[in-house]
């Protein structure tokens, strides 16, 4: 997990097509400029970055299920709950479930756990659009880096 580069997912550990579900893991870094402000002397991962983590897992799920034909863009966050604090070096398990595949949009429910304890959860909605020029390869490269393409094969 590199917070300042918005690389929130370290590794996709499972993509279950029949169940329309993804599981990924990510470890919060020991140090990050983000922690210098949030909060000085009391480093905590901001809720907005936990939301981004759930959104990225959901996005990779949609990309994998759609075989990288379209790009999901986050358009709504509903029922977000942050249940406990997350500090440096925490190992996160991120799961996302496709709840509904609409025409031009998708809905997921995502959760983060650490040591089997719930950290946060939310219902997320994505607009599904054609890839902007050049983004297709970028997302495939990211997917290769985190093992999604191997899981999707």
């Amino acid at each position: 997990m590199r917070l300042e580069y918005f690389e929130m997912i370290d590794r996709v550990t499972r993509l279950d097509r029949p169940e329309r579900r993804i599981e990924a893991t990510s470890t919060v870094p020991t140090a990050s400029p983000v922690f210098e402000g949030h909060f000085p002397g009391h480093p905590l991962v901001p809720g907005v970055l936990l939301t981004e983590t759930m959104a990225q897992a959901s996005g990779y799920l949609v990309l994998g299920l759609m075989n990288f034909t379209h790009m999901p863009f986050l358009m709504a966050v509903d029922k977000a709950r942050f249940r406990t604090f997350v500090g440096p070096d925490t190992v996160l398990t991120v799961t996302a479930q496709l709840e509904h595949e609409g025409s031009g949009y998708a809905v997921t429910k995502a959760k983060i756990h650490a040591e089997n304890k719930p950290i946060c959860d939310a219902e997320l909605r994505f607009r599904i659009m054609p890839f902007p020029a050049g983004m297709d390869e970028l997302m495939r490269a990211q997917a290769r880096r985190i093992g999604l393409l191997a899981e999707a094969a």
Partner: protein
Amino acid sequence: MSSTFETVAGIISETADIPREQITPESHAIDDLGIDSLAFLDIAFAIDKAFGIKLPLEQWTQEVNEGKAPAEEYFVLKNLVAHIDALIAAKSA
């Protein structure tokens, strides 16, 4: 008016925060009710869930953009409701 319309009007009222009495079968979702594309996707999701269907929004958008159908065909509520009823009937056929 039909129960489908009542359900759709309720969804629009709740999702887009529009007083229920302003929503009539003749209302145009965009021109009269001021619903933007993001809010319309919220409404589409609620309609999909409520009726167990999948509104073909991409197809409709393409038809409107290509001039094959007027926007009123899908955005005036009585017409939208007719399309929903057709999708429900096709699902149970």
